[in-house]
Each structure stands twice: as C-alpha cells, then as structure tokens.
C-alpha cells in the first residue's frame, strides 16, 4: 500500500511538472474555426506540433501543419520546438499579403 501511494504521488508530481500554461492566438481561418481570437490553456504536449495536433483534433480545425508555420513569443519557430510555460503561441495559416 505504501509503495502504491508513493507511486501515485510520483505520478501526480510528474503530471504537474509536465503541465504548461500557454496562450494561443488564432488568426484568419483558424480564428473563425476555433471561434475565439485567443485562449489560455494548460497542456502536457511536449512540442508545438503535438500541441497543434491536439487542438486540431479537439476543435476539428481544417488546416494541417504542413500548410502552416508556427511562432512563439513573436519569433518564428520549428514545429519540433518544446513548449515552455507562459509561451505565447501563434499558429500561422498560409499567408496572403502583398
């Protein structure tokens, strides 16, 4: 029983440690599909790619990662980059300026 409780405590601790609170900003088509311009969420996703996949499935977003870029704290990033607590993340749909 003692070992079981210890394991449960360790598991809880790991889950807490893995959770990050991030702000997501949506634009254009993503904003319309998600229904909000931004949201603050708690996630255990370890990369930007994993985070977007989770969001895409959860909210049935139509754009795949291959067609988009991603930016963190106002700088373009790689999809494989890790997520840090308090990151501000923008999933960038295909651009059409100019």
């Amino acid at each position, binding site marked *: 029983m003692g070992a079981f409780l210890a394991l449960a405590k360790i598991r809880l601790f790991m*889950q807490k440690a893995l*959770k990050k*609170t991030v702000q997501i*900003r949506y*634009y*254009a*088509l993503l*904003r319309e599909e998600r229904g*909000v*311009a*931004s*949201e*603050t*969420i*708690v*996630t*255990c*996703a*370890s*990369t930007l*790619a*994993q*985070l977007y*996949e*989770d*969001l895409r*499935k*959860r909210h049935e977003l*139509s*754009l795949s*990662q*291959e*067609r*988009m*870029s*991603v*930016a963190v704290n*106002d*700088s*373009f*990033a*790689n*999809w*494989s980059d890790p997520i840090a607590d308090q990151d501000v993340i*923008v999933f*960038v*749909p*295909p*651009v*059409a*300026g*100019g």
Partner: protein
Amino acid sequence: MIYLIETTIDERELKQSIEDDRAGAIAAFEGRVRNHNDEKAVVELIYETCESLAEKEADRIVSEAKEKFPILNAVLRHRTGKIKIGELAVFVAVSSAHRQAAFQACRYIIDEAKRRLAIWKKETYADGTSVWVNCQSCSAMRLGGAAHHEQEHNHHKHLKPSEQSAPVLSSIGEVAHE
C-alpha cells in the same frame, strides 16, 4: 519604421522619405486592389494581420534588402483592415545611385513580403461566398460582397515543420477565453 497601417497609404510621403541627393534612381511598386480573382467578381477584401509578427518580419526584410543590394534607402507599407477596389494595398519604394540595385531591391522586398509577412486576406465575391486566400480547404461562407490586387496564389510558408509527431495524450483545459 511603421510597416502596417489601417488608413490610406500616402505614397507621396513615403517616396519623399527615401529621396537622397546621392540617388540616381527610385524604384517603386504599388499593389492595388483589383475587382476580380480567378474569374470571380470580388466585392470586398479584408486584410488581417498578427501585427507583432508582421512588423518584425517586415523590418527584417527591409534590412536584408539593404544588405543584399547597394541601395540608399527603402520603405515598405501594407494596409490592414477593409480595403476598396482600386485602393493601394501595399507600397514599396527604394532609392539607390543606380537603377539596377533599385529594381532588384524593390522586387526582393515585395516578393519576400508576400511570402513571409503574417498577413491574411479574405475575399468576398459577388456570388455571396468568401474565402481566406491560400486556405483552399476552408468552406465557403455566405456573406455580402469586395476586390483585390495582384496576388500570386501560392502556398509559401516561412518555415516548414521539421517533423510530424504522433498525437500524445495531453491535458488541455481552457482557462480563459477572450
């Protein structure tokens, strides 16, 4: 330098800002809103932007042009928000001693701006449908009608995703909405 503006672009003021007695050439590009796209009559056009990202990238593009080409000065300004047929959507001007560098830098800036700036365009057509340009998977929405200017429909991205990850179970809670 300000790169994005919600009001009318004053091209005369921008050209004056890059004039220089050392300049033998000024090259400029004006991107204007045209009234058709893919044989459809456009009745409304809206530009949306992530301002912080776009301003930063625009500054980077102009700096790159100054490094790559022997130019004296360069300006880039892009409209955001709703824009009418015939209006100026984007303006680029470059001054240099000689015309070759001016032409090349001007072309570079507008090409990179179209490819890299976090700006999105929503067109509404006379038939009531609207699309976010380059997001071809979006569903058509019924709205009332706009126009647009020279646009190369491409799917350029600033960065490609470096890898695809398998979905993982993650706890996502929506703490706040705006």
